[in-house]
């Protein structure tokens, strides 16, 4: 017998036949098909009990109540807290994506110290003792006024602890980032007396006259405004939107009135003029409670006749009259201002003029009106005990605003400020003419950032004490935006264990104060921030921790405040866009887009993905131009163009948009971050680089809403 080809054939056939009647082939086919559906490297979330924990979102000033869904203790999803007075179950896209901030690529993982141009990790103890050493030497030299703080918040226990630290150290240089709320506060105290705050009950208003306020672009408490806007449409409450561009709010309004930017105050005063002349204002309120009403109406007679206003604003005369009638004859009319999200300080004249309309309507301290309330303080701090050094330092004059401090630093060869604390703020990105701001920052010898993220300002700091995100910390979050009528305070709670070696900002300042010893330390008797918060909110703590929020003011005050027209009659000046009209014939204005996060926070990867490709395409930013303006500049849709302003230039793409007035260029705010985050950074241009600050003289705040610009094809 010989083993030949046929034997092998037999062997092969035998194997095939054996396999065919064995389960191997069938089982392997099934298994391999299953394998392709269950890639072993695909992460699978843990299963477990589902629980919910209430907290507050502090990504913006909306103070929305949130409910965090957890599975087996892991935070899975952020939802809106039902029955919360601010958002009643609703939540915005930034809040929903809030968990992404926990694992953001720019999160700072441990305290950092700058060594040359690079950061190196250090321990919390070393970082604190390094800061204490610097501050002690400043204090020993009795130059305590040479330290400053820029904070994103003005109220709440954390901001108050920092203020307290600065006071007992001996510096009056605590500044907060200005916004429309700063201007509303000034308006309230100038027109109704000191310590008053002002807020709008839009939910119950009968007519809303909005001077550019982006009700669905993130103004006030965004979710509350979305709901108000939706409910308004159902109830038939009219919204008239006055702004130079057809924003989403304008598109959803009952009427959009395009206006030359910067002339909003003129229009408001023109409306006041008609209302007074025709005596269709609330005579009982005005005649009883007013100061300088006559001077005010005299000023209107002189400068704000309908004809003059029509010419200034570019709005038709009959429309102005109709608008005045509509407002005066409506039940509970409310006039609001604060462009877009209201992230920048407002034009004092515009705000005062808009509020004069509310006063004329007599819709003050009423349901569906403007609430003028005394500020409620729910925090019970023990009185500060200052030593001599502190008392002297604290008595030294302060700068009118952080903007003026920074300008001062920019102009001096040596910075008058020796140390700067940066708390929940990113001035090197958010402030106008940010390149200049960066130059000034570099002159400050010692900068301490308390940021959670390596943002543009943290990058320039000398020491970073990284903070917990809002999902990892305790903090009281007061709702003090003028956009929210009811004043609440919510409790932000740690819902996950800290992901990195970070601490609560409250604990950081307690540690610094204790390290400084002496009187400074004595003023901070609390062991840690959690205990401090409990003792400061002693009266409301149980309700606060139980429910997650406490309503401080649920209705307007019974008494009506007097309306002081002297403030506006004394000749406030409108903020104008800087730049010579000959070389820069157009005007660049900033656009707030709900999908792009504002302020110091950069958008989450989820949020940035939702931005239209008419705003960003790839890494290019698109600017809105009216086709008429584009034609003159010989620009077509999608063309690359260069925008030049007196302070900078940028390459952009053109998006032709009929909804923007001719002569304007509209650019989105919140893009062009230069941080180490591949999802959001280097997309588009930071518009703040292109706009020069314009100081509003009565407040000293930068209230620039745009700048003269030119555009040319690249």
């Amino acid at each position, binding site marked *: *017998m*010989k*083993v*030949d080809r*046929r*034997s*092998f*054939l*037999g*062997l*092969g*056939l*035998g*194997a095939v*036949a*054996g*396999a065919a*009647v*064995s*389960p*191997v082939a*069938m*089982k*392997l086919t*099934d*298994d*391999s098909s*299953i*394998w392709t*559906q*269950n890639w*072993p490297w695909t992460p*699978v*979330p843990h*299963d*477990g*009990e*589902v629980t919910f924990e209430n907290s507050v979102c502090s990504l913006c000033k909306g103070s929305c109540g949130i409910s965090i869904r957890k599975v087996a203790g892991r935070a899975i999803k952020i939802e809106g807290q039902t029955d919360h007075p601010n958002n009643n179950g609703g939540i915005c896209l930034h809040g929903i994506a809030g968990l992404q901030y926990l694992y953001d690529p720019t999160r700072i993982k441990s305290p950092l110290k700058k060594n040359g141009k690079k950061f190196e990790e250090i321990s919390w103890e070393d970082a604190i003792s390094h800061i204490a050493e610097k501050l002690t030497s400043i204090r020993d030299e009795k130059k305590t006024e040479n330290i400053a703080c820029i904070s994103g918040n003005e109220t709440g226990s954390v901001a108050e602890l920092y203020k307290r630290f600065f006071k007992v150290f001996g510096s009056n240089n605590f500044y907060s980032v200005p916004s429309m709320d700063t201007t509303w506060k000034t308006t309230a105290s100038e027109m109704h007396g000191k310590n008053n705050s002002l807020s709008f009950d839009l939910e119950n208003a009968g007519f809303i006259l909005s001077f550019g306020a982006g009700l669905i672009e993130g103004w006030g408490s965004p979710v509350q405004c979305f709901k108000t806007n939706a409910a308004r449409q159902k109830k038939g409450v009219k919204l008239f939107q006055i702004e130079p561009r057809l924003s989403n709010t304008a598109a959803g309004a009952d009427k959009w009135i395009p206006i030359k930017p910067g002339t909003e105050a003129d229009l408001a005063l023109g409306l006041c003029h008609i209302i007074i002349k025709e005596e269709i204002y609330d005579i009982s309120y005005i005649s009883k409670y007013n100061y300088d009403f006559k001077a005010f109406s005299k000023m209107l007679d002189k400068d704000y006749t309908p004809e003059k206003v029509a010419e200034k604003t570019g709005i038709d005369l009959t429309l102005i009259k109709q608008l005045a009638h509509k407002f005066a004859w409506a039940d509970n009319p409310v006039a609001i201002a604060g462009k877009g999200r209201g992230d920048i300080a407002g034009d004092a004249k515009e705000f005062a003029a808009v509020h004069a309309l509310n006063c004329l309507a007599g819709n003050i301290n009423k349901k569906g009106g403007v609430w003028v309330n005394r500020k409620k303080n729910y925090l019970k701090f023990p009185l500060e005990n200052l030593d001599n050094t502190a008392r002297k330092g604290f008595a030294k004059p302060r700068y009118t605003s952080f903007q003026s401090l920074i300008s001062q630093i920019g102009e001096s060869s040596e910075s008058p400020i020796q140390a700067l604390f940066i708390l929940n703020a990113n001035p090197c990105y958010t402030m106008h003419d940010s390149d200049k701001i960066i130059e000034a920052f570099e002159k400050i010898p010692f900068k301490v950032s308390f940021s959670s993220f390596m943002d543009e300002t943290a990058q320039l700091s000398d020491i970073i004490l990284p903070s917990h995100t809002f999902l990892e910390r305790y903090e009281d979050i007061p709702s003090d935006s003028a956009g929210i009528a009811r004043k609440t305070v919510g409790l932000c709670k740690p819902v996950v264990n800290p992901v990195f070696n970070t601490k609560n900002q409250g604990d950081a300042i307690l540690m610094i104060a204790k390290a400084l010893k002496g009187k400074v330390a004595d003023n901070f008797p609390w062991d840690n921030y959690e205990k401090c918060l409990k003792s400061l909110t002693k009266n409301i703590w149980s309700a606060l921790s139980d429910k997650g929020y406490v309503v401080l003011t649920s209705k307007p005050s019974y008494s009506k405040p007097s309306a002081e027209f002297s403030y506006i009659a004394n000749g406030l000046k409108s903020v104008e866009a800087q730049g010579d009209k000959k070389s820069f014939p157009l005007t660049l204005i900033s656009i707030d887009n709900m999908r792009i996060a504002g302020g110091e926070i950069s958008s989450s990867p989820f949020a940035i993905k939702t931005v239209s490709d008419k705003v960003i395409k790839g890494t290019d930013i698109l600017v809105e131009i009216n086709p008429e303006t584009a034609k003159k500049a010989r620009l077509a849709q999608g063309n690359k163009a260069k925008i030049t302003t007196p302070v900078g230039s940028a390459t952009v793409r053109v998006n032709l948009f009929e909804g923007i007035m001719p002569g304007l260029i509209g650019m989105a705010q919140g893009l062009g971050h230069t941080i180490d985050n591949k999802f959001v950074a280097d997309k588009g241009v930071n518009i703040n680089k292109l706009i020069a600050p314009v100081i509003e003289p009565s407040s000293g705040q930068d209230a620039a809403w745009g700048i003269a610009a030119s555009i040319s094809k690249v």
Partner: protein
Amino acid sequence: MSEKEKKTESCTEGEKTEGDSGLGLGVLFFLIAFVVVFLSGWLLFPKLLYSKKEQPFNFNHALHTSETGSCDTCHYLREDGSFNGIPDLASCMECHEEEPMGDTEDERIFCEEYVANEKEVPWFVYSKQPDCVFFSHAAHIQGAGMDCESCHGYIGESEECRPYEENRITGYSRDIWGKNIWGIKKHSWDRMKMDDCAKCHKEETGSQGACFQCHK
């Protein structure tokens, strides 16, 4: 006869003479290969396909059910209708904290390695379905009034944990396909693949259901 013709002739002759034995060897090889592959497919293949893993320690279901009375003392539906599955350490501690522990080796392991270290016991779950499947216990227990045994068999009466067998390719528990390598089932709980769900649904509800009901 040319050279070529000779060759052809000798070749034909050769075939004629050795033809039978060649075929016989081929048949033999065929049979050997058939038997080897067939038997391997039946006997060796399952051993290669599944890895065997022992549970962290033995769990006596019979003992526990006799103490607690029913399955749902430990495997219960939560208030929101979700199923708690295998109880966590805290649930075990509810009884075991107050009662003194017994003296078996398994209880010693439980105490020393898990209770003392507050570590969850990494049980292998025989009936674990893949993550792409949504399964509601509430719908089956409460909605359809099914008993545990219909799907899980008489595991409640077992005194010892059998080794957990995991399919090396899919990562599934062997119980999903069933012990029988051909997938032949005798009892309703022998196999729990998609077709088994569909079959029961078809019988009980008249429809095997839509994809998205389970694959959400």
